């Protein structure tokens, strides 16, 4: 779902690959999707743990290569890291032109977002030689497991189109391995959220590409986003901001039935607090313990369309 022609090899026992595949399958089913990434296992058994797993890895790489993928990603497991398999060297010796290694042994620490950061940085090795930036935008770190990932993308594309800008590359979502070489060719990177700041900084140092640290969130945040993008790309954003402000005012008008409601926010992450405060102010909501239970989705809704979906959800709760 990320790199469409990629194959992932998990260098470890079958259980590690099974666990990952099961999780992704369960998430995809929940999202009414059936696509699952191709994941192979090097199938380490006790024998390989004792005698070394590099040969098994080599065999898995050959098996993956026979399918002619655009990219092979090799992930390590706890046990392959503990026994000291030189995974990088095995991959370097492979005839596959595009093969990257991401050390993902659990004992190395870090959480989900650390893994995402590592994967993005590892995939950036596929970036081609720099070209003259062409005024387009690269999206960095879309959340492939997010239910509304493509809805968020459509909203972002719509907002950027108000400025006459196109998205050149989704790094990494629904792209071929070959397309990843375009990293560094855009004029601006837009990070999915601020947790990817290290990635943004790394690409800025390497390609000279500036970045905006997050997809737009909230009414004023969306307008500010348009201004920021315009500023970075030297585009006059006033008309785009005016158009979007009118769009937002129409949306707020469509949900005037929510105005003045007694609400009780629950399960808010710290990052959602500014958005909740903005919504309280825009709709004159009355927070109180006995209020209608409202939540704000996590990840946060993107742009005006994201707010629309959230408001629709709140309306359903009010009418329930």
């Amino acid at each position, binding site marked *: 779902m990320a790199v469409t022609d990629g194959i992932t090899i998990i260098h470890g026992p079958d259980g590690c690959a099974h666990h990952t595949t099961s999780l992704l399958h369960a998430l995809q089913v929940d999202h009414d999707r059936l696509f699952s990434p191709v994941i192979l296992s090097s199938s380490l058994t006790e024998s390989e743990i004792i005698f070394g797993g590099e040969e098994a890895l080599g065999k898995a790489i050959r098996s993956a290569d026979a399918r002619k993928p655009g990219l092979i990603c090799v992930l390590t497991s706890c046990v392959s*890291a*503990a*026994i*000291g*398999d030189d995974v990088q*060297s095995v991959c*370097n*010796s492979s005839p596959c032109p595009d093969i990257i290694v991401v050390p993902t042994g659990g004992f190395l620490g870090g959480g989900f977002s650390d893994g995402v950061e590592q994967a993005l940085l590892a995939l950036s090795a596929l970036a081609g030689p720099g070209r003259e930036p062409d005024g387009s935008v690269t999206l960095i770190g879309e959340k492939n497991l997010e239910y509304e990932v493509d809805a968020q993308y459509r909203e972002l594309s719509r907002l950027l189109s108000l400025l006459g800008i196109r998205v050149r590359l989704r790094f990494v979502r629904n792209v071929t391995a070959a397309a990843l070489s375009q990293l560094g060719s855009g004029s601006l990177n837009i990070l999915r959220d601020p947790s990817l700041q290290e990635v943004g900084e790394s690409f800025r140092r390497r390609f000279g590409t500036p970045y905006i640290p997050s997809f737009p969130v909230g009414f004023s945040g969306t307008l500010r986003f348009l201004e920021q993008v315009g500023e970075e790309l030297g585009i006059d954003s006033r008309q785009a901001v005016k158009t979007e402000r009118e769009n937002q005012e129409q949306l707020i008008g469509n949900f005037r039935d929510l105005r003045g409601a007694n609400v009780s926010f629950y399960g808010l992450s710290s990052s959602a607090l500014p958005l909740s405060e903005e919504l309280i102010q825009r709709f004159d909501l009355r927070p109180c313990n006995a209020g209608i239970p409202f939540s704000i989705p996590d990840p946060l809704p993107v742009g005006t369309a994201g707010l629309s979906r959230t408001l629709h959800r709140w309306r359903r709760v009010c009418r329930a």
Partner: protein
Amino acid sequence: MMKQIALYGKGGIGKSTTSANISAALSDMGLDILQIGCDPKRDSTRMLMQGRFIPTVMDQVRERGDRSIALEDVVFTGYGGVRCVEAGGPEPGVGCAGRGIIATFQILERLGALHGDVIVYDVLGDVVCGGFAMPMREGYAQEIYLVTSGELMSLYAANNICKAIKRLSGRSRGICRLGGVIGNGKNLDSEEELISRFAERIGSTMVQFVPRSLVVQRAELNKKTVIEYDPGSSQAGVYRHLAAKIMENTRLDIPEPLEMEDLEALAYEFITN
């Protein structure tokens, strides 16, 4: 260009003594030397540090966490300005020492410790898992030196390590090669000739024969290298000669390990003679 060498050989054969004396001799030549002990016993650099067991990288990781370690916590300056590091690791019977070596290398890379004119990796005797082959990996030791006596089991261990060198040399970007064999004498008959012949048979050469000498034990009891303890001794001269040979060495081979029968036949040849 920075030279990186690693010493392998049977446990107790004299690798650490040889490494420390090579490092001391090289530092006397005015070179900037880093010696890294890759052994949970953490005794590689003791003779360079006046008998002191320096804090190990793994102990520091356990106490502070690897992100809190600074260079000065793990690199200590000994005789002649030789910078000393001990990887450390678990006590016997627990944990995974090989993983400790891998972690040590990663930490030393991160701290920018791997610099100098020569890096000497002193690796424990039994290379029992992938972690202990870390010095042979791409980017580290280009030259491996096998330390052996004329005893059959010592030759057997050296021969065994050749299998690892051969395998890693065969990788497309593998740069490690066998730089040569260092004979560490045990006063056996025809020992120097046996070790020299062994080196030839595996496709290499004996770069130096270090005779057994009481001054080595005396120096050790005084917590010094021979170079420091008795610089005018002939033994110190041997180590200096060895250090110079290593610096000049351009012969790097991919060894061909012997079959056990051939190794035994070679050893018998010298015993019956």
